[in-house]
C-alpha cells in the first residue's frame, strides 16, 4: 500500500506526541498511587461479609444518589447539597474512637478494631428528619450496645454522650453554621443499649460516604435525624444528662429526647406529616417513626410533650 508522504507524521511530531503521552501517563499513575490507598481505606468501599438483619422495614428504599446527595452535615455547609462536595475534605483514616467516663476499662479503638467487634449487619431503617422529610436506608453496622459493653460501665453511668470530629481548617465555624462545634449528642443508657440503636459504618453495601458521617456514626431510627450523630470520635458515659447541640442552640425547639412524634409539633412547624423523598404526596408521620412496638416501653409514664 502506498502512503503519500504528506500523511506521514514527521518524526519530530511523533516524538513530541509520545513524550506528551508518557508525561500524562506517568502523571496519571502518580495520581493513582496517591489516591488508591485512600480508596482502599476510605469511603465508598464495598464491605464484605455483611449479613442481612431481620431489622428491616418493607418501605421502598430511597435511591443511593438521594441518600448520598441530600445531607444535613452542618460542619460541611448548611445547605443540603454542600456536604456531598465539601465533606471530601474529611480525613477518615486513621480514625480512632475513645470510650471513657464512668467505665471500668476506658479504651481507644481504631476503625479496624471497631469493625471486628461483631459481624456487620444490613438493617433497613426509616430515617425522619426534624425538618419534615424522610428516607429509607440500608445501613450497615451492629448494635451500639456491642461497643458500649467493651468498657464495662460503672453503676454511676446513666447517660452516654457522643462527640463528632471537628477540624477548624476543613469545616465551617460555629458562627457560620449557627450551632456550636464540635457537635455533641446524647442518649439515656437504656436507649443506647437498645438493640435498635445502631453503630453504623456503611450504607448500600459500602463503607459510609464522607457526607453521611464517615467512618463511624450513630443511627437511632425512632428519633429525629439530628440525634444520629455523624463521624464519632468520642463516647463518654456520664452520670448526668449530657448537653446536646441542637438543644443548646434552641432549647425551646429541640429537646434532649427528640423522639419522632406526630402529636408534638415543632414550635414553628407541624410534625404530623412528612415528605418521603421521591414521593409527591406527604405521608403521615408515625409515632416513634413506626418503632413504637420496640421502644415505647422505654418511655413508660413519661409525658412525651414535656420530655420532647
Amino acid at each position, binding site marked *: 500500500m502506498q502512503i503519500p508522504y504528506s500523511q506521514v507524521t514527521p518524526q519530530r511530531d511523533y516524538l513530541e506526541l509520545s513524550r506528551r503521552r508518557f508525561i500524562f501517563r506517568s502523571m496519571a499513575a502518580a495520581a493513582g498511587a496517591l489516591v488508591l490507598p485512600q480508596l482502599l481505606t476510605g469511603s465508598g468501599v464495598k464491605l464484605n461479609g455483611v449479613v442481612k438483619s431481620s431489622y428491616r422495614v418493607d418501605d421502598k428504599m430511597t435511591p443511593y*444518589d*438521594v441518600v448520598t*446527595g*441530600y445531607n444535613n452535615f*452542618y460542619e460541611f455547609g*448548611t445547605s*443540603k*447539597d454542600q456536604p456531598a462536595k465539601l465533606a471530601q475534605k474529611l480525613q477518615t483514616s486513621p480514625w480512632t474512637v475513645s470510650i471513657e467516663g464512668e467505665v471500668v476499662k476506658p479504651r481507644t479503638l481504631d476503625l479496624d478494631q471497631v469493625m471486628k467487634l461483631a459481624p456487620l449487619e444490613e438493617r433497613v431503617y426509616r430515617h425522619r428528619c426534624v*425538618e419534615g*422529610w424522610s428516607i429509607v436506608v440500608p445501613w450497615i453496622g451492629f448494635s451500639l450496645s456491642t461497643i458500649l459493653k467493651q468498657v464495662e460501665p460503672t453503676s454511676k453511668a446513666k447517660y452516654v454522650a457522643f462527640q463528632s470530629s471537628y477540624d477548624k481548617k476543613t469545616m465551617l465555624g460555629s458562627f*457560620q*453554621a*449557627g*450551632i456550636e462545634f464540635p457537635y455533641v449528642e446524647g442518649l439515656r443508657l437504656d436507649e443506647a443499649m437498645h438493640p435498635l440503636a445502631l453503630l453504623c459504618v456503611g450504607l448500600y453495601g459500602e463503607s459510609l460516604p464522607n457526607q453521611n458521617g464517615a467512618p463511624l456514626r450513630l443511627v437511632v431510627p425512632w428519633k429525629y435525624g439530628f440525634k444520629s450523630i455523624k463521624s464519632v470520635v468520642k463516647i463518654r458515659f456520664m452520670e448526668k444528662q449530657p448537653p446536646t447541640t441542637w438543644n443548646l*442552640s*434552641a432549647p425551646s425547639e429541640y429537646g434532649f429526647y427528640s423522639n419522632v412524634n406526630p402529636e408534638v*409539633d415543632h414550635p*414553628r*412547624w*407541624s410534625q404530623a406529616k412528612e*415528605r418521603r*423523598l*421521591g414521593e*409527591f*404526596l*406527604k405521608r403521615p408521620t408515625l409515632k416513634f417513626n413506626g418503632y413504637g412496638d420496640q421502644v415505647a416501653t422505654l418511655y413508660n409514664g413519661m409525658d412525651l410533650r414535656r420530655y420532647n
Partner: protein
Amino acid sequence: MATRILTSRWTKVAVFLACLQPVVALGWRAWRQDLGANPLELITHATGDWTLRFLLLTLAVTPLRELAGVPQLIRFRRMLGLFAFFYGSLHLLTYVWFDKFFDVHEMLSDIAKRPFITVGFGGLLLMLPLAVTSTAGWIRRLGGRRWQLLHRLIYFSGLAGVIHYYWLVKSDIRLPAAYGALLLSLLGYRLFVFAAKKRAAVQAIARPDRQARVSA
C-alpha cells in the same frame, strides 16, 4: 447613549424576559427532572428567594434613580414590583398545592399557629392591593398622593419577607441577615431623605426672609 438604551422599548422587553428567567429555568429543570432530591423544597425556596429579590430590586429603584442620577429607571419599577408579586404568588401556590394539597383546614391552622407563615402570608396579602392598583388608571382614580401612600405598603411586605425567611431557617442566619441588611439600607435611605426634606422645610419656615429673597 445610556439614556437611549434606558428609554428604548426593547430594553423593557429585555428586562421583562430577564425577569422571567428564574421561572423558565425552574420549568426547564422540572421538565428534565433535574430538581434534585427534594424538588418541592427546591421550588419553594427558589420562588421565595425570587420574591424577596424582586421586592428588594423594586425598592432599590428610587435610591438608584436619585443617587446614580438615572431617573429613567422608573420605567421598570412597576414591572419589578409585579414580578415580586408573581413570584410570591407562585411561592404561595407551591405551599397550597405541594405542601398542603389544598387542605384549607390545615392551612388556616398553619396561618394561625405558625408565626413565620402568618408573617409571610401577611406580606404577600399586602402586595395584592399594590398589584391591583398598579395601572395608570388606578393612579388617576386614587390621585397621586393617595396612590403613593398606599404603595408604601411595600415597605411592610419587604420587612415581612425578611422576617419570614429569618424565622424559617434553623440556625444559619447568614442569608436572611444579608437580605435584612440590604432592606434596612434601602429603607434607611428613604428615612434619611425624608428627614433631610423635613429639616429643609423647617428651616424655610424659620427664616422666611431668606426664602422670600431667594424666590424674589
